[in-house]
């Protein structure tokens, strides 16, 4: 009989456990979203918690930009990491749930097209060549390098690229093929960029694309391919300087955080954003991303204080936009 009463009390305690729930989450800042923005936000969160002596807690998840916005528009998190602007559908979801937000660009991400270091024939590539290689019509047809450019050898092409759920995939296809998510399907796709790094570094005929940070950590194994800027006609290498001065186009893009307006009423979230913008440039460099010009971070603080609610994109992504233009535009919900 003794054991039975123990069981009953265990059940009772488990019941109690279900209540007493809210107290824990009082001072937690919840962030979720893109894996591309994650390294920056993680660095900020780590330093912020250290600076605040761990009184304010920050959690960062990786659900992808789309997954992050889903949670964000369901009012579950304070900040959403996004490697692309919010879409019209997500804007509608947020509106329906009464979630207002402030859009803040926090860094540049340069998509990098890489080839094997032993590859001697590829010195640069144009957007048209990339389109020929990656467009859906190329599937099963463009299998050799000389089909893209007659000057290139009669050798098989091995393609490596981002998985279809990532913001990287969306942006690359939009910038190169001309339509988001429009790509051939017969390539090695992985959400794990290290798989792509390994693939390209092992095959002399390989070509692939991913975020600049993965190239920057593996420069010995990979060669970055300069892309011809369609406006100037000059081939430009991906580098911090070229991204900052806007010549590495169209493959560099701003990445964002979206902050819930209601969360900014909590002093700890406001402090976190101030910390983010103050240390953003330095920590962004540390995790191998390209920081925005200093006035952009100041502009974000300004937008926060003035409650500049909404997005400046109107639900569509744009290629080759400068950060100055972004900061000046009117935001809309």
């Amino acid at each position: 009989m003794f054991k039975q009463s123990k069981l009953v009390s265990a059940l009772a305690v488990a019941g109690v456990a279900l209540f007493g729930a809210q107290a824990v989450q009082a001072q937690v800042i919840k962030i979720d979203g893109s894996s591309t923005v994650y390294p920056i936000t993680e660095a900020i969160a780590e330093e912020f918690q250290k600076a605040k002596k761990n009184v304010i807690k920050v959690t960062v998840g990786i659900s992808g930009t789309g997954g992050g916005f889903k949670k964000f528009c369901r009012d579950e998190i304070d900040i959403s990491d996004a490697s692309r602007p919010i879409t019209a559908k997500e804007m509608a979801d947020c509106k329906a749930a009464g979630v207002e937000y402030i859009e803040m660009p926090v860094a540049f991400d340069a998509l990098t097209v890489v080839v094997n270091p032993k590859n001697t024939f590829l010195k640069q590539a144009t957007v048209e060549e990339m389109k020929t290689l990656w467009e859906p019509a190329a599937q099963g047809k463009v299998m050799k390098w000389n089909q893209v450019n007659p000057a290139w050898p009669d050798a098989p092409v091995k393609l490596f690229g981002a998985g279809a759920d990532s913001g990287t995939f969306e942006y690359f296809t939009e910038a190169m093929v001309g339509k988001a998510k429009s790509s051939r399907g017969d390539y090695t796709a992985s959400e794990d960029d290290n798989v792509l790094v390994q693939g390209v570094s092992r095959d002399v005929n390989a070509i692939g694309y991913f975020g600049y940070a993965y190239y920057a950590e593996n420069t010995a194994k990979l060669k970055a391919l300069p892309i011809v800027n369609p406006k100037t006609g000059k081939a430009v290498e991906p580098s911090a300087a070229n991204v900052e001065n806007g010549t590495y186009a169209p493959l560099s893009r701003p990445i964002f955080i979206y902050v819930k307006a209601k969360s900014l009423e909590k002093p700890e979230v406001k402090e976190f954003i101030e910390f983010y913008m103050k240390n953003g440039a330095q920590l962004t460099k540390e995790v191998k991303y390209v920081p925005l010009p200093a006035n952009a971070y100041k502009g974000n603080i300004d937008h926060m204080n003035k409650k500049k609610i909404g997005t400046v994109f109107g639900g569509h992504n744009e290629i080759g936009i400068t950060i100055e233009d972004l900061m000046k535009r009117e935001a809309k919900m």
Partner: protein
Amino acid sequence: MKPLTTEQIRAVIARGKLKDNIFKVMGIFCLSLALVVIVALIADMVIKGSERFTVDFFLNFASRHANKAGILSAWVGSLLVMFVTALAAVPLGVAAGLYLEEYAKRNWITNIIEINISNLAAVPSIVYGLLALGIFVYQFGFGQSILSAGLTLALLILPIIIVSTREAIRAIPAMIREGSMAVGATRWQTCRYHIIPYAMPGILTGVIIGLARAIGETAPIITIGALTFIAFLPPAPFSELGDGGTAGLFDWVMAPFTVMPIQIFNWTSRPDPAFEVNAAAAGFVLMAMVLSMNAVAIYLRYKMRKNIKW
């Protein structure tokens, strides 16, 4: 038919022995292949991760600096989730197994239940994750918490516990039941004082094998929203909270968390190759956790079997 000569008989025996030996060698080869794979795997992780096996690695939170990053929130998270899982799955699973073996009538309903328990054991774990996302996270409002994760994994290992409970009960000779009933014990008393104690070694083995499977699960935990960066622990009972209050005895079940497999996955997918060392070291720790759970199961079974005399 002519009788065989001694030579012929010897030849037949020799051929039989040769086949015997060939099979033996094949068996040893297959066994050693499996062993070599696991030993190589462990050795690889130990060698790659060796520089991270420090006290700090166990006591540090995740960090963007590979050499400062540790697994504190991950292993604490894994242990707490396992605790909730065991608390939920063991009573349910054992009771279900006991009912099916000792109480239920053999009819078509119990047949359907039995078939579906086997079916449940074969459901991919991600499906449990989706189910739990709908039910525990949103419907019951448990959120992305240790409680949600623990209950999800409890569902996942419930079939394992039920099946092993039933097998353990079936192995008890009928005379035990009959003897107990013959002296006037009720069915519950028979279960309480005979069936459960005698089945305990088998049940415990099933429970620990189930938990060892659950601790390595990643997919359902990702689905319900375990975090990647979390540099604080769930509140210990009666500890002071940041806002001046005191944590309740069970506040930790509602806390956000991460677990070992997610931490490992995150480290393998980072650009900086230095994190591969962390991933290897954490992989070894997870492996050690699973192996020691299995060792405990074997020990308990041995210990308890010794005390049973029929």
